[in-house]
């Protein structure tokens, strides 16, 4: 302050006001109070929201616990239903894959020469499936391959001197169209056309033979 100044100011400190519309001495405490109140409201709302969510969670958990037996029952029923459907489906596959031997074999006596006596007619069991993967969770109900090779073995004996012709005649007959629905190929494996040495010299004219037939494969579709 200037010593020579004649500023004799009669204004008191509490009468000094700011001309700014934003009054710091009002705004700062007001903002502080509003901030605290806002924080409190926010905290209250947050607490209420958390309480509401917790209550809702508890309610849902209780509801889920009440529903769990029924849900488990539904799941079990669904699993059983799925299992049954799979079994039905598998049975349908087997039904579709069935090979009818009867019709073809009914024609067989007409083509068997009189000198031939069939001693065996067998459809061998298909080779066993590879062992199942223990890591599989769902065990297959049936074979997992879609096709299965089918063979038929015919064995017999022929007693005439024209055994070769008789067997050849049978072999040719098996290749005729009347068997083509069942038999795709027919052949005499090596070493299977031989004398019947086991029964003694009296029946040395008897010849044993085998015919291996490759049938249409079974398709599980």
């Amino acid at each position, binding site marked *: 302050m*200037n010593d020579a100044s*004649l500023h*004799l100011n009669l204004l008191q400190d509490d*009468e000094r*006001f700011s*001309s700014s519309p934003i009054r710091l001495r009002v705004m700062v405490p007001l903002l502080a109070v509003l901030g605290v109140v806002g924080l409190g409201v926010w905290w209250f709302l947050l607490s209420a929201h958390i309480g509401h969510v917790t209550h809702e969670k508890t309610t849902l958990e209780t509801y889920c616990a009440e529903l769990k037996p029924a849900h488990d029952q539904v799941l079990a029923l669904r699993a059983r239903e799925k299992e049954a459907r799979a079994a039905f489906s598998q049975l349908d596959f087997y039904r579709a894959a069935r090979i009818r031997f009867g019709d073809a074999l009914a024609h067989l006596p007409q083509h068997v020469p009189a000198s031939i006596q069939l001693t065996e007619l067998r459809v061998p069991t298909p080779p066993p499936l590879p062992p199942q993967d223990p890591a599989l969770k769902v065990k297959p109900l049936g074979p997992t391959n879609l096709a299965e090779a089918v063979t038929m073995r015919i064995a017999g004996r022929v007693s005439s001197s024209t055994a070769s012709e008789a067997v050849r005649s049978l072999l040719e007959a098996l290749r005729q169209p009347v068997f083509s629905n069942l038999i795709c190929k027919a052949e005499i494996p090596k070493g299977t056309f031989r004398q019947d040495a086991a029964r003694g010299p009296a029946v040395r004219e008897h010849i044993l033979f085998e015919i291996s037939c490759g049938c249409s494969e079974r398709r599980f579709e």
Partner: protein
Amino acid sequence: MSRVSLSSSFSKPFKACSDVTGLELGAGLSEGVPAVRLRKSKGRVEVVAADFLDLPCVLPMSPEESEAQTWRLPAPFRAPCAALAIRSPQASLCHSAGGHGEETADRAVAYRSVSRQTAPEMPPLVASLPDFQAAWAVRLLPEGRRPTACSLQITAAAAMGGFAASSALARAGGYAVALFVFAESTSLAAFQEGRLVFYREHAVGMDHLRSAISSEVGIELELADSALENTLFDPVPIIEPVLRPLYRQVEISADYLLRRCKRQVEHFFVNGLTIGDELWGELFKRVMNRTMTFCSPFDGIGRAGQAVRLPEDVEKRAPLLMTALGAARTVLEDA
């Protein structure tokens, strides 16, 4: 920040005023409330606006009359701060050896006082004002709206403060006796090296001159001013009995300065005289054999480039703005 400094920063929003509107309250002028807005920029004071504002201003004379009213100043006068100069018959400004407070203890109403040691070996200058009048004046300019009061001064002190900062006193080398003519009284101040060393009031003002002319010539008071300018008769014999005691006080003050600082006073200034300059000077020359210098409060004050409100006859009516301008300038110089 400490608690003290924080509270003080809230309670003292005015660090330094560089843009102030001076207002004179209680002047009772028909023109309105004198208002001058000054701005200090780069050490230079310039006037931004000056006018007489049409505002309700009836000074309360008792606490019961203090009605709460607020002012909204025109846009050119909306400086951040306002310096209020209050003219009140209950206000006082004097040198008091006992300091302020002793004289006001026995008064019926509460007074507020402030003192300033203006010169060594001199009693401090004490200004006092009824508390209710000060509170009324401050409430005119409410918080949150430009301007708000940053200073409340007695008119005589405001006028002296403006003159003390004027270029006229500086040109005089700081040694001068100055008269401040008001309606009811005339203040007399002696300056030494720019500092006030002596102040007193003389109970003769412009209204006494007008009254003397009115009664002597037989005209109404309102016509007295025109009679002072009229050359049909010589008013000096009428005003001489009124002014001679005042000039005697001036002579005493000059002698006091001569004894105090061994220096003859060469400069005598008159402020606030609206009319009759030549008569005052002629009579002064006759009585004191000295020349009187008549000052305009706007002397040495530049005009702001964007001065938006300066009446055309501001020079003619400038003496009436002396107090308002002095209040604003005192604040600017004290910042």
